[in-house]
């Protein structure tokens, strides 16, 4: 659990983060969104004390984060820096091994971990391990940056726009992988993004920042349904709202009794994908199948349209 209590950061006269309080439940993903310069990175960096707050306290599992030396704290918290920040003079493998080396893991364990992470991020350890960062594409560099943050299996992971440079296909894959890791290890993740789609998809809760202030902190559905201010509404994107709402739900949860013609859609696809398929194929209904391939029922345009309406 991460408790942020009345945290403020001032540089001279300008207040960059203004009296922010929030609680991030353990084993959840909290996504921070906001315009450029709204203080997202600064807030994130106060958690691992790369930035010392002007006022306020941050507690990790009940303990003040100032109770251990900064460098020790930071070894226990994964950090994927904005714009990857790889060490240009170290190979990809050495970059990923940074924190395990600092923690004094033995060689075999480090090598096994590096290989595991590189394989997970689709970088062949043999081919890419000995390369230097400048020999990678921007997207590959970013994946190495994320792998480096994950290397020591931290309980808390801070990620500053980790997927910005990835193409949509790899980005979706990276998001899924991250969620899988998060589920498996029960990691608490705080992720900064500019991409509302990513925020709604990844976040158990979304924190919206504006000019240093936390203007809303709630579940994605709540943010979509009841934006706290016109700023949040603009950020969410009024014209995108119904579709974002649908993207939160699974087809399985919108199944109606009955049957329909044509290729079946899997039950764990998003409702938004189902609507897109319905509209594109010009049909009123699609059959739905479970993970075992058995028919579950059908999904209809009318049903989805009702679900896309503003919740009461």
């Amino acid at each position, binding site marked *: 659990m991460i408790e942020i209590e009345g945290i403020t950061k001032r540089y001279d006269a300008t207040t960059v983060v203004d009296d922010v309080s929030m609680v991030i439940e353990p084993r959840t993903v909290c996504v921070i969104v906001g315009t450029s310069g709204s203080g997202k990175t600064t807030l994130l960096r106060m958690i691992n004390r790369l930035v010392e707050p002007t006022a306020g306290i941050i507690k990790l599992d009940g303990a003040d984060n100032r109770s251990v030396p900064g460098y020790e704290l930071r070894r226990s918290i994964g950090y994927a820096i904005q714009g990857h920040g790889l*060490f240009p*003079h170290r190979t990809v493998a050495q970059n990923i091994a940074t924190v395990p080396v600092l923690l004094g893991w033995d060689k075999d364990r480090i090598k096994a971990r590096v290989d595991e992470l590189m394989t997970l991020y689709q970088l062949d350890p043999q081919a890419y391990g000995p390369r230097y960062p400048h020999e990678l594409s921007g997207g590959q560099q970013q994946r190495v940056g994320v792998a480096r943050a994950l290397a020591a299996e931290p309980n808390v992971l801070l990620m500053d726009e980790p997927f910005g440079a990835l193409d949509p296909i790899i980005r979706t894959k990276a998001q899924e992988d991250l969620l899988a890791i998060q589920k498996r290890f029960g990691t608490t993740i705080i992720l900064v993004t500019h991409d509302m789609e990513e925020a709604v998809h990844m976040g158990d809760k979304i924190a919206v920042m504006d000019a240093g202030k936390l203007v809303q902190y709630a579940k994605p559905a709540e943010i979509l349904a009841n934006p706290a201010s016109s700023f949040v509404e603009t950020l969410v994107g009024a014209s995108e709202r119904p579709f974002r709402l649908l993207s939160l739900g699974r087809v399985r949860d919108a199944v109606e009794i009955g049957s329909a013609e044509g290729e079946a859609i899997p039950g764990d696809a998003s409702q938004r994908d189902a609507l897109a398929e319905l509209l594109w194929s010009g049909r009123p209904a699609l059959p739905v199948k479970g993970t075992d391939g058995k028919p579950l029922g059908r999904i209809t345009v009318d049903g989805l349209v009702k679900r896309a309406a503003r919740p009461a």
Partner: protein
Amino acid sequence: MRGAPERPTGEGVNIRFDKLGVVIAAIAAYAGFLAPFATFRANRIVPGQARSILEALPATTAALLLAIIVAAALIALFRTPLVLRLAASVVTLVALALLIGVAGTFLTPAGNTFARVSPASGFWILIFAFTLLLADVLTRLNLSPLARVGVLVVAALAISLLLMSGSWDNLSILKEYFNRADSFWAEGSKHVTLALGSLAAAVIVGLPLGIFCHRVERLRAGVLNVLNIIQTIPSIALFGLLIAPLGWVATHVPGAAALGIRGIGTAPAFVALFLYSLLPVVANTVVGLAGVPRAANDAARGMGMTDRQRLFGVEFPLAFPVILTGIRIVLVQNIGLATIAALIGGGGFGVFVFQGVGQTAMDLVLLGAVPTVALAFAAAIILDAVIEMTATKRRVETA
């Protein structure tokens, strides 16, 4: 419009000049036909008489040398394949090196030990012109750092071979050498010790000082300014300024005199070279550290490195090529400056230079100057190669 496109010559003669080659050919023509090749003197201090190539060498040898020069100049003049240009420059340089020795023997009357023969302007200009051609070819060949050091080693071996073969023994510079062979090596080792020792001291003091200046911003401008001012003090003046304090140390600090610390001699020379070396070392350390990408520093802290780990693991390796550039500047500068040490009895190759100036014996001046230039040249090539090798892996990230 772009330059004329390269296309194979179909019809007619398509002659293209090489830009640098035009200059080289012009210089070579002047030096080969108009400038004196060697100087003859009845003894070591009387004014010399100029001898052209035709006068300085037996007729057939002279013709051969002129033919080689003309051919090589033509190869340089036109756009010719690199291999040909390489061969032309190497053949000409070797021919010049061998034949200047022949000229020495040819011009010295048999049994005369007073007569002196030395290379004259034409010889030096030819050497310069074809070294330029060779350097141009080597640059265009884009040699790897190791290969460049290899070329240096081969050249050094060739020169040692010529020296040992005795084919230059009748040249005046070697006659000067034979008269003081022992002191030549003694002064040589003193010269190298002075240059390297003061460099080592400057690195030992300058690196931490540079790191300190980088960390404490308020000190930076002040320290660099002071070092800058020291750099502008003329060396003679600096020696003068050092005589009093070092003399005082020698008489008042027990043991100092035993260590060789005196107002004149090696100690002030060493201190002066050390002071001149500090600025390049400190300034390049500061610049190198400031050039470390912010993101890399940030990541180092974010991953949980301590300040020390960050300094040695990230900042230092990334700043290393720049720091090494400072060390290269210092080494080349020190090898040259160490000549001045002779002025205050500090020894080194400068001893011959100043003796030669005093006796108006140019050959003796050369005996001090040539090894100094050669050492500086070799140091520059070797350190450039090292810098390039350390820098290739550490290219600055683009993100």
